[in-house]
């Protein structure tokens, strides 16, 4: 049952990610991105990380993607429909794709013996992963967490200042 769910959500995520890149209509792309994010949330749930599942939905799907769609709607769609979606540098891109594939293959080949994930860890059996995440963020890794928050705050204030010149 677990692996069925996993493959279902993975296939959904990959398929919608591909569709997101290939759709001409930008709103359709956004819808497929939402599907991909939801499928990822499903994988979190299948791993019994229900807090991450919910946070993924609230933040990415319910927050960030709404703003994406909001901005997309303000864009002139007719124009973007006629734009060329892919550029024509096929030669360069083929080489780059081959190099990337080679790198990935080498990486997998070198680590082929460590791919076995082993038995399921103890952490998954814990009933309350909300508490364990809070413990990790606010006790074990307090300083890095705060630094990351301040970084985001700086970026946000910067964006506000740049958008609103006459403060």
């Amino acid at each position: 049952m677990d692996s069925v769910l996993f493959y279902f959500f993975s296939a959904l995520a990959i398929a919608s990610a591909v569709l997101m890149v290939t759709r001409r209509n930008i709103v359709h792309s956004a819808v497929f991105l939402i599907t991909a994010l939801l499928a990822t949330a499903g994988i979190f749930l299948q791993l019994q990380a229900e807090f991450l599942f919910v946070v993924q939905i609230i933040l990415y799907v319910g927050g960030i993607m709404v703003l994406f769609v909001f901005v997309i709607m303000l864009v002139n769609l007719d124009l973007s429909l006629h734009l060329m979606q892919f550029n024509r540098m096929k030669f360069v891109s083929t080489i780059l794709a081959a190099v990337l594939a080679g790198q990935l293959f080498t990486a997998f080949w070198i680590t082929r013996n460590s791919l076995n994930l082993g038995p399921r860890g103890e952490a998954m059996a814990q009933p309350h992963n909300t508490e364990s995440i809070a413990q990790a963020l606010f006790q074990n890794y307090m300083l890095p967490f705060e630094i990351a928050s301040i970084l985001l705050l700086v970026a946000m204030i910067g964006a506000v200042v740049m958008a609103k010149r006459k403060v």
Partner: protein
Amino acid sequence: MNFIPASLRDYVLPVLYGIVIVALLPLLAGYIVLLERKVMADMQARLGPMRVGPHGLLQPIADALKLLIKEDIIPQKADRFLFWCAPVLSVTMALLAYAAIPFGPVFQIADLNVGLLFILAISSLGIYGIVLGGWASNSHYSLLGALRSAAQLVSYETAAGLAVVSGLMLAGSLSMKDIVQAQSDQGVWFAFVVPVGFFIYLVASIAETNRAPFDLPEAESELVAGYMTEYSGFRWALYFLGEYANMVVVASIATTLFLGGWLRPFARYQDHLFGTSIELLDLLPTLLFLGAGVYCFWLAPRQPVQIQKIVMALVGGLCVALALGMTGALFAPDTVRTGIHGAFWFLAKVFVYIYAFLWIRFTFPRYRFDQLMRLGWRFLIPLALVNVIVVGATIVLQQNWDWRHPMLTAIVTTAIMLCVAAFLARDRAPEVEPLEVGEGD
């Protein structure tokens, strides 16, 4: 239950509850619409719907039938797939949220340990129904409605989330069941401990369900019907169902978190009437239904048409049957008794909350969009932030100094919060120059 295989036994009851909710919710939504029209009529000194059934009691059914057989129109240049998807999305997300709502200690589909967050997450997905529907209609009114809705929901979700946090800190759990249990243990509804948090949630939840005075996404005088301008027939009905289902969802969150969920008022007060196991207050539902039944019987012969007399008598009979059921439940085993009476009190609180929605709707004029944004970002969100900090501080102080009285917390936090609110309210909106319509393209 013994005839069910053991492996399926865990699933049978939740599936049954799910079917009951999905079957009853459209009916409930229809009757909330009737309630709304009746309350509106009453506040405007009119009678409201009176023709279909006695006192318009069958109006929702007639409306639903009409919508079912109406022609289904899809605009020619609409994005057909998304146009089809959007209302379905809106209803599905609203219904999905019911999976975690506890209608009583027994009547709950699933007690998730992130229940509250789950409901918030799922109901935040409902925006896509509005936004995509507005975009797919390929109409300016719809698009503007969708844009307004997206901006409004993202803004007020922050305030609502922070207000919820202040209640959560008191409960110490995200599971809906544990939240109610915490209120039972502490002997007080959290609305009395963090009244400011409750107020912020009330305002934000009105904005989140796109209700007046924050109904700008569907403001009739400006945008025809906003995002659902191009919808007709049953798709339109689906949007309506989604909206009213969402109202019940936010009312359920408020009930669970701030109004004690399925707990009876004065849940700790026990008098064991006449030496039995019956409490005086548990007789309240019986009396209520009995009173309604007697009133219906009194009205029945006074109806103008024969069929209306019969329907009225049937309604009276239903009320009496409910009264008998509530009384019978008092003598049933404990799970049945608490289940039925819990569901009654939960629904009663939900309806009081929805009545407050209607009352506010017919009392306040609609906000202008910049005023709405201002209220959200410059008043509610700072207030909610300070509220979280103040409530957190009082909880820590309580734990360290052994202040065990929740009312003290309420008074101290409310006093501080009123000062903060007064400070924030000094911020007046500047004179706004009228926007140039049609600027840009």
